[in-house]
């Protein structure tokens, strides 16, 4: 190969796009020709400069958040979480009308800011009730808040199914533990679906059951040292809460059904999990 041919092949050689045979011929020539070798050195330096010296603009974390927020907005999934006025029926937001191509961002921020302000208002109205001693009391407040929120926003379930064999695998992929999922429709507590929830600084499975026109949220997570081991019953703000454990998991049932219904529900779950 002469220098002119090498000059034409040098870029492909540098980019590793030559077949092995041609590549070897170029290599041999570069070893024997000082001029071509120097030219190749400069080419390599250019490539290296772009790769190593020029800035690589990673996406800032705010952009990542903004995009995930706007994607959720696009499917209407961010709608009315925590908006007290929304009522029990979900108002699925219209697919946001296409705005001018590059003007989405300020509106997203406005929506986000509004959500934060709303969250703060709700948080501050709830917080006086939080000022009670005892970790169970704190947890109970959190549980009730999650229960109420699940009913208000259109977020009762992440996976809506009365089939425990649909709900369980779904939850298993989302959680690092395998929560027992039981259908009690034969006993008057049909399973409505499952949801991921976050409680007491850890994730929890939330199973939703129906009792007549009422809903029961059953929160399940692996028992930790922070969890009480005894059975507890609480009544607060018109809701009943029952806690029990079965050695592996801690269960909290939250609902506005009667306490006897909830106790009955608890016994059914206990019997069925013990049978497994």
């Amino acid at each position, binding site marked *: 190969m002469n220098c002119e041919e090498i000059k034409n092949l040098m870029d492909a050689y540098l980019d590793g796009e030559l077949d092995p045979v041609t590549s070897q011929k170029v290599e041999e020539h570069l070893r024997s020709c000082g001029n071509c070798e120097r030219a190749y050195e400069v080419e390599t330096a250019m*490539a290296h*400069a772009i790769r190593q010296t020029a800035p690589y*603009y990673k996406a*800032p974390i705010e952009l990542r958040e903004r995009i995930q927020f*706007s994607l959720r907005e696009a499917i209407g999934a961010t709608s009315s979480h925590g908006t007290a006025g929304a009522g029990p029926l979900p108002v699925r937001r219209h697919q946001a009308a296409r705005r001018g191509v590059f003007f989405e961002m300020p509106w997203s921020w406005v929506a986000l800011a509004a959500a934060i302000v709303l969250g703060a208002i709700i948080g501050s109205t709830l917080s006086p009730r939080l000022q009670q001693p005892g970790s169970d009391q704190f947890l109970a407040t959190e549980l009730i808040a999650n229960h109420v929120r699940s009913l208000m926003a259109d977020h009762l379930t992440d*996976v809506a199914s009365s089939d425990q064999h649909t709900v369980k695998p779904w939850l298993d992929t989302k959680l690092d533990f395998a929560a027992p999922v039981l259908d009690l429709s034969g006993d008057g507590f049909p399973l409505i679906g499952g949801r991921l929830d976050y409680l007491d600084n850890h994730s929890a499975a939330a199973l939703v059951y129906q009792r*007549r026109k009422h809903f029961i949220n059953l929160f399940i997570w692996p028992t930790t040292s922070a969890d009480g081991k005894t059975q507890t019953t609480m009544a607060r703000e018109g809701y009943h809460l029952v806690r029990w454990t079965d050695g592996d998991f801690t269960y909290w049932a939250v609902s506005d059904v*009667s306490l006897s219904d909830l106790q009955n529900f608890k016994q059914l779950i206990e019997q069925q999990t013990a049978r497994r």
Partner: protein
Amino acid sequence: MQFVAEAQPIKNAMAATLEAEYAFGAEDLEARDKVVKFAVFQRHEEQGAAQEHELASFEAMMLPHMDAAHNLARWLLRNEQDAQDVVQEAYLRAFKSFSGFHGSNGRAWLLTIVRNTSYTLLKKNRAADLTTTFDEEVHASGHQSSSPATILEHAEDAELIKNAMNELPAEFREILALRHQEDLSYQEIGDILKIPAGTVMSRLARARAKLREYLSSQISQEK
């Protein structure tokens, strides 16, 4: 009977009251309304679940390429705010057409959309930026180019390299970023830029030559 009721624990009496509540017809009427509402609610939930499932697979496939998307947009637009807006817009566009995407190279697909979105903005803002406005053949004789040694010496100067890159026309900036920062093959670059692999090679060669030339001129200006 009253006597017996009083003798029972209070909570049972409360439970009995609540049970009795369900027996009322008026309660049932209200309940029926809620059942209808709940049916609507559940249908929404099912649609929502399908959409959320699609979003989850979209995010799993596309979010890992956000750095690549942002880097390309940033080099093309040379402006952080524009780059972010373009990447966001591109992700929304990509999600809308995600159901029609059956390829395996999610990154190349996303970068194609980022590029198209970037050019839409570039055309709107700075039409002049799009084309190579100078005569590329003139550059070699145009001015004294620095020796290879001098260029090698300056190849580590980040500010210098960045400025030289930004001096290049958009078609050179993008091809250099795709080749040397994303390590894409000629074939992948060709798919994104909609040009044959041979053109990728020659354009890359011209881009690197141009970068070398700008580097030379900036070095000589410094002196």
